[in-house]
């Protein structure tokens, strides 16, 4: 996917996440992009590593800066007690209209991610995204062993929470199957 189309997919995801009530801070966008790419098969090509709060991509961070510089997103403070949010600008809508095919191809996927992650907070997203990271990158198949791996990687996550996050990811993967197949044509 070329960098401009990738930016269109990212702008679409940001719009959907905001529409579905997400706080839309950087962590929310990082995890949503990870799920869109790894679970739903969007060909965004971001390189993710396991970082402080779970999967993280420096390229996603760069694209957030690029979107700000290009006037596609604005930074706002919804509540001074928490971190800032990234909201689409009116120009983002004009920008998205330039790429109708890309928007159409990714709309259902972005909406699925937003519907399922929009209400999650940073801690929820860290657990779910890390559980997905393990599911995709580890050879361990059993749910219990993956939950143990999640606790090993993120010791502040309790055993029951890790098991629940692993289960949630399996459910999400099952429910997203039709969309993944659709995305691959």
């Amino acid at each position, binding site marked *: 996917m070329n960098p*401009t189309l990738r930016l269109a997919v990212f702008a679409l995801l940001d719009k959907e996440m905001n529409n579905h009530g997400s706080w839309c801070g950087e962590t929310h966008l990082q995890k949503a992009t990870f799920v869109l790419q790894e679970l739903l098969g969007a060909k965004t090509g971001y390189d993710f590593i396991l970082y402080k709060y779970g999967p993280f991509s420096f390229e996603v961070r760069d694209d957030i800066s690029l979107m700000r*510089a290009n006037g596609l997103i604005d930074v706002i403070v919804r509540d001074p007690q928490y971190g800032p949010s990234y909201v689409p600008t009116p120009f983002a809508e004009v920008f998205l209209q330039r790429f109708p*095919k890309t928007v159409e191809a990714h709309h259902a996927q972005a909406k699925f991610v937003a519907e399922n992650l929009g209400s999650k907070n940073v801690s929820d997203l860290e657990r779910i995204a890390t559980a997905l990271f393990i599911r995709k990158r580890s050879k361990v198949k059993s749910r219990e062993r993956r939950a143990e791996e999640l606790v090993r990687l993120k010791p502040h996550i309790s055993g029951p929470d890790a098991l629940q996050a692993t289960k949630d990811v399996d459910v999400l993967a099952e429910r997203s199957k039709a969309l993944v197949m659709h995305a691959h044509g």
Partner: protein
Amino acid sequence: MLRDSHHTGVAYGKFDHYRLIDEIRILPSNESPTEPALGIEEGGIYSAEALALARYFMFSQVYYHPIRLIYDRHLKDFLAEWLAKGDLFTGGTFSTKIEEHLHTTDNEVNAALLLAARNLNAAGHDSACRIVERKHFHVLYERNPSDIVLHSNPGEVIASAAAKQFGEKAIRYSKPKIKDTATDFPVKTRDGRIAPAISVSHVLAKLKPAAIDYVFIDPELLRTAEKWLAEERKKILEVAAKEEQEGDRK
């Protein structure tokens, strides 16, 4: 930044670092209140604003100044041609062996630059002359916000059209990586609450990363190219915008 500001003779990079250091605190993170993060007391917010502005100015006026960028490009062009000749290392690149790498200094490169600039037949002669004799390429186009409305990458489009019109050798394109200003740090307000910096400072809230995009041209063609661009820019961008949308539909 203070060092760079001092040695380049510009005042943009200066800020009250003594006050800023005095006000730095370890505070609960904006992302997760149980996580520590580097923040400041509210009294230091003006120094933090000055740092952010200094960084913004240093990038736009010094680090990403068009003349610095084009010299960077001429040097890269020279190095690629000079190294490809294989006089210094076989393989056409700098050595990746540690000892050999450490033994290569600016002296070898500067000497090669001078020799290449004086010898018409030397590898990298043209680029070397541009550096040594200050005959660098000049700015033909720089990013304009109104062009972004037409096309996502106006600089790239103009560079491509200019290369077709004046030849690849006469055009260089530079789009350095965007450097954002870290404004997402916690601030301890005077009443003891913790807030994100952008909610305390209107300056930080408004500060956007600067996107920089330049098309350079051989100085001998500058006047002709400026006239050509003034006449063709809108058309070039409109055609490219149409192609961009058609590319999406393929």
